[in-house]
């Protein structure tokens, strides 16, 4: 029942692409106290295969220790924001947990209908490290589901809370979580006629915002590498708009490829070795890839239209993109080496910015219809289209690492209007704004951190 978290390192590929994991790895060991043997199958489980999921009532007690309360409060927000859990108001708690390692009085938690209970502690060790322990209990099953222990340096305290959240999410849903991840986005300030745009990065919940560029040049559409601490994005530096690659930690950057015209709309391949993007030539935009090691470029489409927003399937075998070759913007799928694309979008309106889910099962998109901008999903063959949110202007979805949640930007109207980031789960029921310091657009979700 208990999964060892891997802290695998991925080798740097070449040149300035240094190895991943500049973020410090958390050391983790696992606890199982009292010889309570965990049942062979989890009794308490949220079934995510069903359409509508009633949030699971869960009691998250204040963790003891130096930053215990802060940690458990982040865990509580994460689980609540997923839409899958309903943390119970601590005012209703009957038992006050004094020893987070002792078996709780399950009957006290059954009375308030808590299905699951979380206890824990976070303390500073003599060597300055943080030590965190938590236990997840099945209230009606009278047993511990998981117990885990972590050590890390104090700078990682929020990550600790996210990792605990992911462990709880996984134990109760059977799927990996998405809380220990980050968002790269474009921070927007200044008047609408001359917006200052900066690359910025933050935790998935909006905390720890850090700016990666200063705003001296227009920057758009940053996307994470799946394997390295780097992003690809479009920059207008020097009045010469191109696709760039940028190391997150060092700030080192470089143009991708030596293309004769404007390159834009970049994204990494799932193995992180290629960037796929559009190249404009005399007003015609086609899709190209560049291998980051060999620098080989390959042209994948050959139209007289606008072919853009390419996104790979997670196995790397197919590419979805948008094209107006048939008149309006529609979604097309082709093999990873090009070839004749098949159109997959046939609803009323136009479709754009397709992104393949990391699970492979869905493609998210922006749809323009009847003067509104909608965010929706469809299966890769174009069937089962569902709209998740609609309004004046919603655009540019990005998938959480587990394929359960989309983040996108929503623009408000008028001279003083601007974009803010929102997330919505794939049922469309749980939508919320992600706090950012200013206007924000073009979010891209990282993989789970290592």
């Amino acid at each position, binding site marked *: 029942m208990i999964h060892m978290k891997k802290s695998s390192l991925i080798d740097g590929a070449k040149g300035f692409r240094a190895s991943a994991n500049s973020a410090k790895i958390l050391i983790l060991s696992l606890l199982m106290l009292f010889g309570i043997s965990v049942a062979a199958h989890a009794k308490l489980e949220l079934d995510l295969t069903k359409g509508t999921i009633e949030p699971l009532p869960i009691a998250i007690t204040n963790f003891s220790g130096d930053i215990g309360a802060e940690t458990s409060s982040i865990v509580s927000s994460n689980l609540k924001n997923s839409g899958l859990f309903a943390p119970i108001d601590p005012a209703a708690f009957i038992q006050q947990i004094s020893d987070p390692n002792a078996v709780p009085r399950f009957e006290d938690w059954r009375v308030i209908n808590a299905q699951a209970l979380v206890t824990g502690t976070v303390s500073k060790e003599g060597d300055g490290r943080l030590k965190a322990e938590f236990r997840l209990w099945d209230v009606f099953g009278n047993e511990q589901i998981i117990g885990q222990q972590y050590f890390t340096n104090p700078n990682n305290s929020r990550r600790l809370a996210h990792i605990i959240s992911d462990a709880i999410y996984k134990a109760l849903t059977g799927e990996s979580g998405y809380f220990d991840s980050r968002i790269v986005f474009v921070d927007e300030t200044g008047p609408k006629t*001359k917006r200052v745009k900066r690359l910025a990065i933050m935790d998935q919940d909006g905390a720890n915002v850090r700016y990666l560029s200063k705003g001296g040049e227009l920057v758009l559409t940053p996307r994470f590498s799946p394997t390295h601490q780097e992003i690809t994005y479009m920059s207008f530096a020097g*009045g010469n708009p191109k696709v760039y690659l940028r190391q997150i930690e060092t700030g080192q950057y470089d143009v991708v490829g030596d293309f004769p015209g404007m390159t834009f709309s970049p994204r990494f391949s799932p193995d992180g070795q290629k960037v796929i993007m559009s190249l404009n030539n005399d007003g015609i935009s086609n899709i190209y890839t560049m291998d980051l090691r060999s620098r080989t470029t390959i042209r994948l489409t050959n139209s007289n239209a606008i072919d853009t927003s390419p996104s790979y399937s997670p196995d790397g075998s197919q590419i979805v993109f948008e094209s107006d070759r048939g008149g309006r913007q529609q979604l097309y799928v082709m093999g990873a080496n090009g070839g004749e694309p098949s159109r997959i979008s046939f609803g009323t309106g136009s479709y754009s910015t397709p992104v393949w889910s990391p699970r492979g099962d869905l493609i998210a998109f922006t749809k323009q219809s009847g003067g509104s901008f909608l965010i929706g999903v469809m299966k890769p063959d174009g069937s089962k289209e569902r709209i998740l949110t609609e309004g004046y202007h919603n655009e540019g979805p990005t998938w959480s690492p587990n394929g359960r949640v989309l983040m996108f930007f929503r623009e408000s109207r008028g001279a003083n209007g601007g974009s803010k980031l929102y997330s919505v789960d794939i049922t469309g029921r749980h939508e919320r704004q992600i706090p950012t310091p200013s206007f924000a657009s073009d979010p891209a979700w990282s993989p789970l951190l290592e």
Partner: protein
Amino acid sequence: MPIARSVLKSPIFIALAVGLALAGCASKKPLPDNANGLGLNNNGGASPGSQQDFTINVGDRVFFETDSSALTQTARATLDKQGQWLSQYTNYPITIEGHADERGTREYNIALGARRAAATRDYLVAKGVPRNRIKTISYGKERPVAVCDDISCWSQNRRAVTQLAGPTG
């Protein structure tokens, strides 16, 4: 042993799409009449051959229909004048900036601005302006000149601007 499971309720998707049809298509309306439409038509003091002369008396920009890079009759007339002027005053480097309105997605608008800039350049080249004198750049929807949320502004933003200099930031 009691088994706690989530309760499953009604089907996931309630029709969020209801009401989408109401907003109407925001495209058809006369385009602004270049400089006149922008209130730049005060002729005073522009010396012949100056940038001001070009902007005011010739018109530095042309406008497009939604999602289109086709040059309208008005646009052609403006570009005819631009071509004559640029052939007379040959000392300016030329950058054509293509722009889109905010009612499109970012990547597409970048490409659409490039298509508009290219269409504008090709017309000027056909009118005798040397191709190697003209650079093009697209700003997509990133640099609107009018910022209201209706057609009166969007139609001013769907434009190609002939700049008598290098590209602006």
